[in-house]
């Protein structure tokens, strides 16, 4: 028997697979395709202090082996999420991770504090790729000092483990990871999307109404693997890896690079059953490459 279980701060996962934030709503839609109790965890869509309506459309565009998105944090606000969405997920035997977003440090704190109300959320994922309105739109996720500050504040506000989601749009991912580790982060999730743009030739306009969007999908997988590997060498907290996962072999590649668990985003769109399929295929792939458990494979890349 191949052991798929993974234990991470606040999270006892029956397997290392979960949907990535923003790609799975709050689980309702995919629950029509399969039983969400199959999943290791669910990463909910971003929550902000108040309801947000998001960006104008088009919000997505296809690229070679990838896609751009600029949804713009559309969500009903943290209070409604706790009232209406978390209870739905609590019906399932799966861990729940709340994605915390905001435009100011205070908003992050507010959202994190609110999630303390419910025991049905098991961990927070701090989405620091949002622009900081007060600092003139610089992303929390590209400045180590800002990332450290917001992580500290959220740690103080929250009684749940905090995973910080790292943006790949940086010169030095290790510096970012170390900054949030020092600030007390319990874990990391990586990578978020790379900023990209695509032009629609007939109109000469960006295909995404918001001009730029975040690039996800298999196109970015080599960047995710490199960053996870680099961060694994330099930090000690667990990593939930993501970025272009499509196959059970991809899952193993992330584990070898140093991820303790993985999330699948974009691949849900082309195949709504991708997560249960990967969960059922993973044991055979682990066995094929000589592992008897997920834990055993973590960080086992051989690199001289």
């Amino acid at each position, binding site marked *: 028997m191949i052991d798929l279980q993974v234990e991470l701060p606040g999270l006892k996962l029956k397997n290392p697979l979960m949907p990535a934030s923003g790609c799975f709503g709050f689980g309702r*839609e995919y629950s029509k395709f399969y039983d969400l109790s199959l999943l290791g965890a669910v990463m909910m869509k971003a929550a902000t202090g108040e309801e947000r309506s998001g960006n104008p459309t088009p919000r*997505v565009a296809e690229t070679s082996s990838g896609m751009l998105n600029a949804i713009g944090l559309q969500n009903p606000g943290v209070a409604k999420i706790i009232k209406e969405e978390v209870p739905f997920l609590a019906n399932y035997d799966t861990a729940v991770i709340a994605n915390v977003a905001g435009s100011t440090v205070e908003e992050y704190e507010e959202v994190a504090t609110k999630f303390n109300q419910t025991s049905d959320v098991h961990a927070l994922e701090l989405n620091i790729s949002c622009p900081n309105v007060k600092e003139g739109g610089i992303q929390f996720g590209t400045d180590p000092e800002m990332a450290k500050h917001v992580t500290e504040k959220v740690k103080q506000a929250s009684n749940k483990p905090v995973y910080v989601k790292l943006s790949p749009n940086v010169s030095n991912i290790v510096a970012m990871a170390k900054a949030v580790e020092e600030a007390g982060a319990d874990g990391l999730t990586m990578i978020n999307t790379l900023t990209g743009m695509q032009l629609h030739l007939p109109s000469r306009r960006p295909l995404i109404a918001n001009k730029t969007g975040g690039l996800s999908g298999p196109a970015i997988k080599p960047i995710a693997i490199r960053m996870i590997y680099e961060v694994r060498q330099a930090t000690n907290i667990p990593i939930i890896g993501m970025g272009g996962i499509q196959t059970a072999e991809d899952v193993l590649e992330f584990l070898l690079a140093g991820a303790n668990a993985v999330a699948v985003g974009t691949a849900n769109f082309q195949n*709504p059953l991708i997560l249960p399929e990967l969960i059922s295929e993973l044991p055979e792939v682990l066995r094929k490459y000589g592992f008897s458990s997920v834990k055993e494979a973590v960080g086992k890349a051989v690199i001289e």
Partner: protein
Amino acid sequence: MRKVKMKLLEIREIAKDTIEMKLTDNYITEVAKPGQFISIALPNYTLPRPISIANIDRDKQELTLLFKIMGKGTNELAGFIPGAEIDCFGPNGNSFPLMSGEMTKVLLIGGGIGVPPLYYLGKQLKKQGIKVVSILGFQSSENVFYEKEFARLGETFIVTDDGSYGMKGFVTDAVTSVPSFNAYYACGPTGMLRALTTQLHNKTGYISLEERMGCTVGACAACVIPTTEGGYKKICHDGPVFAAEEVIL
């Protein structure tokens, strides 16, 4: 909603760059309603292609799609040969409300590749004894398709932008020649729908919308449309059919 493999039975070009596909499957043909769409997952593409259900023959377990070659994905799809298995999931979205009993006559208004979902709708309406009048707008004679099929459902007007076939003009011009109807159902380019809903603002109307999609099932919030009540609805999940007065085009 399920993930299914559909087998391609027939494929032919029925107008310029316009393909008719007949597929077989035993789940979607059983449950799908007019106005719903399916999502086609092509190998080597990141996003599924949403395509409306143009017809269903439940007995034969046969589904018809009509699509226009618009880009890489639809071009590749047009190259499939009978026997091929196509990965799909669905049926997705809501459907056209049928309101049987309340209606005696309805108007179907389709523009270009917005025509397909109206055909399955028209067939269902006719089956319920409702009189169907159709106005189908195309760019030019070479783009016209399904005239005969709609004519079998009831009176049918064809309009072309350049007058090369049927009446010259837009569907909005033809609407004035249909004296009375209980409700209208429309699908086509946003510009057409905007003009129509303005022209027919005092009529009961249902429109089917398109937007670029990510998940096609309601999970990613890519395909939203602002509503008159405020906030956004998801076209793939709350639509693609909306009451005309419900959304801001």
